């Protein structure tokens, strides 16, 4: 087997040195009746070429050749080949969690840079080394708010990503959280009067997403003002990180839960991505996850270490702030490299292109009779439209043109029949948008006739 570095003679020599006759002797501590005597029924062994062929065949059964207008928490963005070149260096790819700081300075300094970039993006004071994804980061942010406020009621915007709300409910069910939903208003943003009626002094946190699931940008500063008297914390989830290049950062939030997939990570059918929690300095000891900090050695040289570990499971066990151990370090490195490549100007330009293309797409779609915009709050690169009939039926027509159309919202929001969520990024060309618009015009007309 090509991955195993031993010849038969070497194995025999090692067995002899140990003083046993056969390899089976080394498994004698497993009760005999539990030892397998037949080979497992597994496909393989495959040569490298066979493995590649298997996965190429599977790739051919997916969506290659289609143009997609899906976003909803996972975004198609340009990525430089430099990012993958760096993260495939064995020194990053095949190293462990940097507990041994003297031989892990590369990883540690990169984490420190990641934490800094996230602070700059979000307007927060500290950020951790990563969480599993945006959904678990949001949940951990809520658990953190619960610890800080010692309160149990959590108000969650109905416009927070439905799958993020699901994850929060799964975790919250057994930690005594009471989760209540806050409506969205006619403009698609949080209904602030509805919020005020739900606010009492037992609320741990309000959780909003901005831009929210419908694409609407929330007024974070106003929400923070509105919460202040109640003592509840404001948790802001950001699923589309590129928006931070152009949209005011959620600096007034107490905790930000960011999904960093947009920063150099491919959609990869849903993961691995990179969540991260950013917050204010005063809450740092209640944060979950690893943190890299600056330190000096005995010669006064600057270095970096994992720090404030007294929050973590390997030290605190059942009293830890979270059970997270393995995180998404390599994805955080990809985000760090990607953001460094983009830099200040590149990120702004990418964000401006998203905004411009989404605006253009909306104006093209609104030329189609019977299509209207669902909400009028400002948006970044996603917006919600209302079609003359079911989004599913329209999408079936679009698929014939090799277009993956809007995400149908009626399964997620029964109160929103015929609503579809459209995402347009810098990767979408004008020709894609025009083809989509004409396909949609036709699909709506056909769908109309069928009815």
């Amino acid at each position, binding site marked *: 087997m090509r*991955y195993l570095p031993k010849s038969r003679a070497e194995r025999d020599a*090692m067995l002899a040195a*140990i003083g046993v006759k056969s*390899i089976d002797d*080394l498994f004698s501590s*497993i*009760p005999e009746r539990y*030892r*397998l005597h037949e080979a*497992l*029924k*597994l496909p393989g062994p495959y040569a490298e070429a066979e493995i590649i062929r298997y996965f190429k065949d*599977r*790739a051919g*059964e997916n969506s*290659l050749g289609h143009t997609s207008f*899906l976003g*909803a928490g996972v975004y198609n963005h340009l990525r430089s080949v*430099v990012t*993958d070149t*760096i993260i*495939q*260096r064995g020194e*990053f790819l*095949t190293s462990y969690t940097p507990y*041994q700081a*003297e031989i*892990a*300075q590369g990883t540690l300094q*990169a984490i420190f840079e990641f934490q800094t970039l996230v*602070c700059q993006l979000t307007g927060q*004071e500290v950020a951790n080394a990563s969480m599993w994804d945006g959904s678990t980061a949001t949940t951990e942010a809520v658990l953190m708010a619960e610890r800080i406020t010692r309160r149990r009621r959590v108000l969650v915007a109905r416009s927070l990503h439905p799958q993020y709300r699901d994850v929060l409910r*799964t975790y919250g069910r057994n930690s005594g959280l009471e989760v209540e939903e806050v409506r969205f208003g006619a403009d698609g943003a949080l209904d602030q009067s509805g919020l005020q009626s739900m606010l009492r002094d037992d609320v741990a946190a309000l959780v909003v997403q901005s831009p929210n699931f419908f694409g609407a*940008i929330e007024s974070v500063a106003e929400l923070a003002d509105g919460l202040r008297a109640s003592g509840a914390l404001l948790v802001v989830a950001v699923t589309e990180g590129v928006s*931070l290049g152009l*949209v*005011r950062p959620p600096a007034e939030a107490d905790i930000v839960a960011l999904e960093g997939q947009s920063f150099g990570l491919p959609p990869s*059918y*849903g993961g691995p991505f990179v969540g991260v929690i950013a917050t204010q300095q005063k809450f740092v000891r209640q944060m979950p996850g690893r943190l890299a900090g600056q*330190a*000096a*050695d*005995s010669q006064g040289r600057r270095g970096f*270490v994992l*720090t404030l570990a007294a929050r973590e*499971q390997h030290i*605190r066990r059942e009293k*830890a702030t*979270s*059970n997270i151990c*393995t*995180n*998404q*370090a*390599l994805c955080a490195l990809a985000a760090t490299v990607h953001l460094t490549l983009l830099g*200040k100007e*590149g990120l702004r330009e990418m964000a*401006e292109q998203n905004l*411009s293309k989404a605006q253009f797409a909306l104006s093209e779609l609104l030329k189609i009779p019977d299509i209207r915009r669902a909400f009028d709050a400002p948006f970044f690169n996603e917006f919600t439209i209302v079609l003359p009939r079911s989004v599913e039926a329209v999408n079936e027509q679009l698929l014939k043109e090799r277009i993956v159309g809007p995400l149908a919202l009626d399964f997620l929001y029964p109160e929103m029949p015929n609503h579809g969520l459209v995402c347009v990024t810098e990767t979408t060309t*004008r020709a894609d948008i025009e083809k989509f618009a004409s396909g949609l015009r036709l699909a709506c007309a056909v769908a109309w006739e069928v009815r």
Partner: protein
Amino acid sequence: MSDRITKASRHVTQNEGLIFEKSSPGKRAFDLPPLDVPAADPRKTLGRNHRSEGVSGFPEVSEIEVLRHFTRLSTWNYAIDLGMYPLGSCTMKYNPRVNEFVARLPGIATEHPLQPRGLSQGCLKILQLLEQCLLEITGMDAITLQPAAGAQGELTGLLLIRAYLEGQGNARKKVLVPDSAHGTNPATAVIAGYEVENIRSDSHGQVDVEKLRELVTEDVAALMITNPSTLGIFEQRISDIVAILHAKGALLYMDGANMNALAGVARPGDFGVDVMHLNLHKTFSTPHGGGGPGAGPVAMKKILEPFRPIPVLVEKAEGELALEQDRPHSIGRVKAFSGNFGVLVRALAYILAYGPDIRQATEDAVLNANYIRRHLAGVFELPYSLPSMHEVVFSDAIQKKNGVSTMDIAKRLIDYGFHPYTTAFPLIVPGALMIEPTESESKEECDLFIDAMRSIAEEAATNPELVKSAPHTTRINRLDEVTAARKPILRWKSGRI
């Protein structure tokens, strides 16, 4: 450089500051294709939400500077690609490069998790085949690939147990955790809403079966064991443990961190485990990447199947695969979308490379650990003498007499060209040296490691200061972690050095 050190020599590495310190306004390393639609005016469209000043402090550098920056940083890391990484419990094995290649294929990396089922059959077939392979390896009945890492797998497993027991009328109060367990076990039990009761190991480092018999009452939901344990020893009385739990209606959870000792040799499903997680970034070779990402699939017996987290992979009529969201008894969703798919792809590529020969990998892993044990026993104290499987745990009791601790020996190992073993864990061994070579090490590499450890033991006896002040060959020496934690500096700010 001592002539005892044969594996490594010194070489020059480049100095490199923080990227923010290299920044100069106007430089950039990324160009976009020109905008092909009318430019929107962000002030108009975003109004007061417009971030007109851009992201303050963001780096401004060129492409070559980015490449050099991160390449220089990379040279400061130790890695599997450089040599043995004997971290016990972490299973630092070779990360095959074909796995990286296939995970990045167009049609794999490019796929959106919400795209129509008809355009996702390739992804779903990959998930199905991986599920089948992992069930065959574990001997279990059902599986979920959703959890993002081992700790999330543990939580998923305990929530399954809770849902099942609730269905029986009582979720119960306590989870038992051996004192040799990973820290994630007790931390997870609390999130699942259980009290943690620690159970002491017996004089052989095994679960104290008599003590267990006393502790297991109708209040106990489950015992979380690691098997082989964190000492690298198979639980001899596993069938008694299972019987005691099941007699009281409690279930057995197995932390699969040490599955590298069992794959192809024995199956947890056969020896009575009710639910377990796997760490694909350990046993199934997906890269650790400096701390992640991983994946923590959870395999279970039939009784727990109805409670699996959504989405659940199902086969529809005519063989079409689908991710089902509507499952009335499900514990809910543990992560957005569908698991760490890219990690799952890599794990399947690993399994396909071995097929049934995965047993050979397990045998080589156990062979290496026993070979090292044979050569170091006596040089270092072996606190528990039962047979080792894939890892061996020594203590620093002999070296402690000269004031040299496991951490000192670990740091000195760096000078010899190796990554340290796991120090000070499991907690039941004071001053533990936990060594897991994995199957990826040749006899030659094992011999070099043994020579290095023997040499350090000698240094600890004759020149303890040399060991206590190690490492001597790294860019920096031991960092002041106390000050770093007392006055944390967690981000760069302009003006600070």
